[in-house]
């Protein structure tokens, strides 16, 4: 495979994945509005298109057409950099996520359902997410607004604290698979369908619980959405942002949700493999054969997002000291215990 071929293929994959990802982001917003609406016994958006399905398009058009206000007291370079950094990091991390079966390859061992296969895919996702913190931190500081600053301080502290628990909760899974490559991790849990998922057969349910909590905190979602607590901070770090810049933060939040869902799917729920294992015979048609894994993958990510929205519609917000106590005093020791337990089990199995 020549460099040019590689380049063109990669470009094509990047475009397709980005478009699908952004559509996913748009419709996750709609899903959230609809579901929260139903939880609160109202309809949610229902006027634009059938069942409100065109609502995301209209929302996008609206935020493009809004007046773009840049307050005079902001520190402009960083104020403009922050949303770009936020959205950029959120969109980058999807690049190493494998969506579909590995046996569908083009000439030269070229994977179709993944932008790039990297040995340390998991670490890349963690790294990109950790750089994404700057978007939030800088937006709050450069806005020159007390609410924004408080929001971003809370957010940075929260992200640093929960990133530890998040990273440690993944160690057990990595030890079981013996690799940081996301494909290898998925294949290590593909043998008996749902029984060999890390969540069940791998006995990593404590790790999954920790990951779930830490992921909610990492993406600033309810019940850990302290950085944008409306009742105390107006809108938190993006108080001073309007129009597309606000929309970029908004998209980054939902893109991060989807990425977190993808990681949970890959690490704990068996990725693209079927939960039924070999009970369903592999379809003859190569096209169906290629699409089947993608179906399972999307279904799993969707259920994760559903859970996200469900939690948001159900649980009240934590207090800030509760949040910190929970992270450092319960999640972190629990994650370390899980690592010790998993290594003992792996050693004396």
């Amino acid at each position, binding site marked *: 495979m020549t460099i040019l071929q590689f380049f063109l293929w990669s470009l094509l994959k990047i475009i397709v994945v980005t478009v699908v990802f952004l559509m996913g982001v748009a419709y996750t917003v709609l899903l959230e509005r609809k579901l929260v609406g139903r939880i609160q016994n109202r309809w949610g958006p229902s006027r634009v298109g059938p069942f409100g399905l065109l609502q995301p398009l209209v929302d996008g058009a609206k935020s493009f057409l809004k007046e773009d206000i840049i307050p005079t007291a902001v520190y402009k370079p*960083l104020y403009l950099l922050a949303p770009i950094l936020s959205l950029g990091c959120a969109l980058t991390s999807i690049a190493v996520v494998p969506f579909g079966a590995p046996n569908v390859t083009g000439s030269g061992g070229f994977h179709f359902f993944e932008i790039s296969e*990297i*040995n*340390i895919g998991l*670490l*890349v996702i*963690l*790294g*990109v*997410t*950790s*750089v994404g*913190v*700057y978007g939030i*931190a*800088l937006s*709050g*500081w450069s806005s020159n607004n007390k609410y924004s*600053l408080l929001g*971003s*301080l809370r957010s*940075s*502290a929260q*992200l*640093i604290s929960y*990133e530890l628990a998040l*990273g440690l909760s993944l160690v057990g899974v990595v030890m079981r698979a*013996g*690799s*940081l490559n996301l494909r290898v991790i998925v294949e290590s849990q593909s043998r008996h369908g749902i029984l060999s998922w890390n969540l069940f057969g791998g006995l990593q349910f404590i790790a999954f619980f920790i990951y779930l909590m830490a992921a909610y905190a990492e993406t600033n979602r309810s019940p850990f959405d302290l950085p944008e607590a409306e009742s105390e901070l107006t809108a938190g770090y993006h108080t001073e942002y309007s129009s597309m810049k606000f929309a970029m933060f908004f998209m980054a939040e939902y893109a991060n949700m989807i990425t977190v869902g993808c990681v949970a799917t890959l690490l704990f729920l068996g990725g693209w493999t079927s939960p039924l294992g070999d009970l369903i015979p592999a379809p003859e048609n190569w096209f169906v054969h290629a699409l089947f894994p993608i179906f399972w993958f999307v279904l799993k990510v969707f259920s994760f997002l559903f859970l996200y929205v469900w939690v948001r519609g159900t649980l009240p917000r934590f207090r800030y*000291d509760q949040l910190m106590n929970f992270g450092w005093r319960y999640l972190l020791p629990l994650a370390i215990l899980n690592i010790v337990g998993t290594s003992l089990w792996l050693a004396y199995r």
Partner: protein
Amino acid sequence: MHLILFIVFAGLCLAGAINLLLQTHPINSALSLVVVMSSLAVLYLMLGAEFLAAAQIIVYAGAIMVLFTFVVMLLNAGREERTLGSRAAKALGLPAVAVVLSVIATVILKAQGLEPVALSDNITSTTDLSKVLFHELLLPFEVTSVLILIAILGAVALARPAGDEHGRRTGVEK
């Protein structure tokens, strides 16, 4: 290809480092340091040290520098004033820099000779790295972690308010 990437990122690294010194605002300096750390990570990657590159991004660019910016934001540090610098610093500093640089250069050259480091597609896998860390270099590795533990204890001791002998928490009561 490797050479182009090396020149681009080494240049970026140097530019970030110089910018770090020239900026008057602490937050800009901190962000330049982030650029330096990230381009260093790319250089590590080109040397085949993928785990090191990822760790550099996660630990340095992602955690330590976020703490730096966090402190800068929290203290709301303003612009620093330009001074001409003390004469003693100039008189002692420049020779000292030259000495330190030459010592480092001698040590590296002695260890390695004058052959250029090969930038290649060779990758040291995480497994190999962990074998070295946890088998051959286990003692230094663990001693380093004890060192860090001591630093943490020191920080806790310093941060504890004076007159708080019983180690009682003074922050938010439960």
